[in-house]
């Protein structure tokens, strides 16, 4: 059978207006259904005819999945809230600037108008072998095409590879981990809440999924607690272009200071491993230390311990080291983007 890409096949589109209706549809159609949030990831799969669901369930019309509401000192963000709405929200801007930066540096203005926060954290990897439809481990095969001596893998993982060397491409994920966000998941049997850092899973856990979401699950809400509201934040993303590009590496840190010392800190990076990584060892090492160049150097060196580069991504080691240094030390923003 010949292959053709870039033509979307026909499917039945459901546009439920309530979460319960969406969950019922998911239950009814099971594996034949695809959940559509902003569509920035799903549409590629559909256009490439690599996923040919009989049913697409569009979460767009569900009002209860959109919007940002205060909750205690923190916020509850509906998973279908667009990245643009996250970026523009006054409380997010005032208290959780790190999430503004993560969301604002994602993709392009047009994509941020359509793409959602829930979609951004739940998107699949962008490994170009996998996304081209090659039958790799992640796609159910028995090889990683990106991990061979001749493979092109500058954008792939230096940590945590387990057969698959693809990375998680989300820009908001490290910010949410640094903010200690909670992910609220619903299915027909109820609701569960997981920490942001546990929401993402690597190939060792399940090579076919990027998150803990199972068939029948819908990510409904992202809760941002107030524990780091108004803290010292740092976010930086290094990419090839200043817009419409996934991170080569990004870094997010939230810290509180006491005197000149780091009192509490959460630090996460993405683009270096199959899932976003919270650097707990670095956090522990720098806690209580003066926020200075020496502590930053220590953090940078600790961050890259155990890194295993592939043929073309050795640069990610010094890049990660330098970004973690900056996340501790602080630096002028790389340059303004919007």
């Amino acid at each position, binding site marked *: *059978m*010949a292959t053709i890409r870039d033509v979307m096949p026909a499917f039945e589109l459901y546009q439920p207006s309530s979460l319960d209706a969406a969950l019922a549809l998911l239950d009814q159609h099971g594996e034949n259904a695809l959940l559509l949030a902003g569509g920035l990831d799903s549409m590629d799969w559909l256009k490439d*005819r690599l996923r040919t669901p009989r049913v697409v369930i569009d979460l767009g019309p569900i009002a209860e999945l959109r919007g940002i509401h205060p909750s205690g000192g923190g916020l509850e963000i509906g998973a279908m809230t667009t990245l643009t709405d996250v970026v523009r929200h006054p409380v997010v801007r005032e208290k959780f600037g790190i999430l503004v930066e993560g969301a604002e540096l994602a993709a392009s203005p047009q994509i941020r108008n359509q793409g959602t926060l829930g979609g951004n954290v739940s998107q699949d990897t962008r490994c170009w072998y996998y996304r081209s439809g090659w039958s790799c481990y992640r796609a159910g095969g028995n090889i990683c095409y990106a991990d061979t001596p001749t493979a092109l893998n500058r954008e792939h993982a230096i940590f945590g590879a387990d057969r698959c060397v693809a990375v998680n491409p989300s820009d908001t994920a490290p910010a949410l981990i640094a903010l200690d966000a909670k992910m609220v998941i619903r299915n027909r049997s109820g609701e569960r809440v997981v920490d942001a850092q546990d929401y993402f899973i690597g190939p060792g856990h399940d090579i076919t999924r990027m998150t803990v979401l199972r068939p029948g699950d819908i990510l409904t809400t992202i809760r941002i607690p107030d524990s780091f509201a108004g803290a010292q934040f740092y976010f930086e993303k290094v990419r*090839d*272009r200043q*817009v419409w590009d996934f991170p080569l590496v990004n870094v997010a840190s939230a810290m509180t200071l006491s005197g000149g010392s780091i009192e509490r800190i959460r630090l996460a990076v993405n683009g270096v491993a199959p899932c976003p990584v919270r650097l707990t060892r670095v956090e522990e090492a720098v806690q209580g230390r003066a926020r200075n160049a020496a502590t930053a150097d220590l953090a940078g060196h600790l961050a890259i311990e155990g890194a295993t580069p592939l043929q073309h991504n050795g*640069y990610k080691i010094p890049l990660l080291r330098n970004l973690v240094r900056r996340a501790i030390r602080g630096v002028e923003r790389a340059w303004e983007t919007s």
Partner: protein
Amino acid sequence: VPDYTLIGHNYQTPDLVAKVTGRAKYAEDFRADGMLFAKLLLSPMPHARIRNIDTRAALDMPGVVGIVTADDLPKAPVTTTSAADKTPPPNEVAPEVALAREPLYEGEPILAVAATDECTAAAAVERIQLDLEPLPFVIDPLDGLRPTGLSARKEGNVFVGRELKTLRWTDADFAQIAEGRFPMNAAHSEQQQFGDLNAGFEEAALVLEETLYQQSTSHQPLESRTAMAYWQNGKLYLHGSTQSVARTVPSVAQWVGVPESDVVIVSEYCGGGFGSKIPGAHSMAIPALLAKKTGRPVMMRISREEETYIGRVRPGFQAGVKIGFRKDGRVTALDLFIVQDSGPYQRQGDMQLAATVASLMYQPLAMRFRGISVATNTPPRVSQRAPGGLQGIAMLEPVISKAARKLGVDQVEIRRVNVPTAGSPFGLSNRQKVTSAFVREALDKGAALFNWEERKVRSGKRRGSKVTGVSAVVSNFMSGSVGYDGLVMIRPDGTLAIHQGIGNLGTHSVIDTARVAAEVLAMPWDRCEVVWGNTGRHVPWSSTQSGSQTTHAHSRANHAAAMDAKRKLQEIAAMDLGGRPEDYEVGNGRVFRKGSAGGVLTFATAARRAIELGGKFDGHEVPGQVHAMTKSSVKALAGQGLVGVAKDEYPRDGLTYSFVAGFAEVEVDVETGAYRIVDYLAVADVGTVMHPRSLGGQLHGGAAQGFGHAATQRLVYDKTYGVALARRLHYNRPPTILDVPLAMTWDAVNLPDPYNPVGAKGIGEAAIGAGAAAVLCALTDAVGDGLVGRTPVLPEMVLAAIEAIRPTNDRLTPYI
């Protein structure tokens, strides 16, 4: 520059409102009764022989109307006049055909299915059983030269003229490559030389030898090459996306196998081509052939993925250069050796053009060019904006900058001492001269506007993690041809129609050059209509919209046609009002007697008189020297007004080139390797400025495309499997508006070229090399010479150079 009424002034082009409001109809926007949609089946392999195609299951699907394969292609293409009576060489390369029997690259079209809708056509493609025999393939041109290596085609591995031959490098050559050095003594298939190279190097105070890599990049115009075709009374009507219009007729006729007189091309708007849509293409032939076979109109929309495969690619270079400099920076000798990735189908001229551009830019006392045009199983190569010119300037300007640093010569000065002036010689075996070259003037103007003396102090200055680099560069490219036809008509309503056979590819030249006719006839612009974009509306024979030639060529042609109209107006006035023709002048839509009152004839009256007089006046007689296409257009217009028609026979002594001096400042983050362009200025020598706003658009648009070539854009191929990985725009990474400086600036020296009636030269292409080289030179100015001569320069390459870690790629490796 004289005080023109229209030339040199900003104005609103007549296509502008339709474009910005979305009312402009591009090829994809047309519909015809009963129209079918076509989808392509593309080769999944980089090289294969088709053993069998089973289309039965597809044809059985409801809604599927027809399929075309290689069997449906015209048996013997109708030869165009230019290709006639040439005896083919014995090992002539089989040319590219619209649908392949032996696909030579991944993504090459094998067949097309027409169905009542696109979904059905795509589903039908999936039902086709394709039996392919995989054949050996070559992705990296150097692999195609290995002593015991494979060849991209069974006939050979290297294009020489119109033939494929076999040429192999030695183990010793590859030992040098393994050390990151281009083997300058390896075998070559082409050579040109002038002057005494050894004497030049002996005279040199500094000799630099560099290994260079210039990437292949796909053209990626925003409008993909969609086409819609239908047949009416034996004629093919084709709505396509083409850079040229008149010149698309013969190439479509050849692809489809019909006489040129049976082809009508409609392409009023073209969403960019950059050299990939110069004439017609196989993507136009396929819907035309399907429409013929099914008897229904056929639309073939080309997706972005298909565009990436069939939309053409700039030839990449793996190269070595040795340049000798005197103490003052004067280039004494230049020895250039280029291995060119030529794709699967034909020799490419880029490498030779790179040498030509270098011979003009640096005026070396002696120069040698050697090259090999290697066949690979990657998408077909074709000219892309400044073919060879971009690669040549982008790889050699950083070497000039490096020499300046080593010699302690100012970056502007080293360029000033080498640049050409009017009449300077260039070219290698066939030495030519340039008609005009005001490069020093451009450099001086740019240095003043950019505050070069103050700016250069910032070179290498560090602020936090940021290091500044600055650059001054020069670029050139051909910018004009001669000998085409102009056609204008004064209608009985007194309006002036300027018929243009050139295309509307977004540069405004289709309108800008029409204004020359209006200027000659002193005609108010609001009473002029430019007729363009449809060969059914009777257009003259024209240049292709390529090689930056249109502005020069068609300002000449339209000038000639308008002068013809003016002479006819004067003759009619003399006939009707007395006196001699030369007693009459034209202005404001009237012919009037010089220096006295009375004796006035309106253009409307003159047009009616022309129709009464017939003969040459209203197009019933056509000058013998114009092209057959022009003749048939005039014949169709005959009797409708006063016709001005002429072939451009104005003199030209030399070849026309334009020049750009580029200035840039970049800021490199030494902790991340990321860099951004802070400022860019382009100062052009384009002869007379025709339309300031569109000139600025070309200088900045070209620069932005050059930034992409230097910094962000790329093709990516997996060499083991021979297939593309960067199949989508976001993997290809053309630059975005946020990758260019907020406030770029431009200027022009505005000195006329002596061999154009209004002094005009083209500009589309010289602009791109300046942008690319300015970034690359500023980058090396900031972080050192380790990055000289490579594109693209990605953040990891900068970081690896700074951190002195193992480079992420070998010096000559393509496709990262």
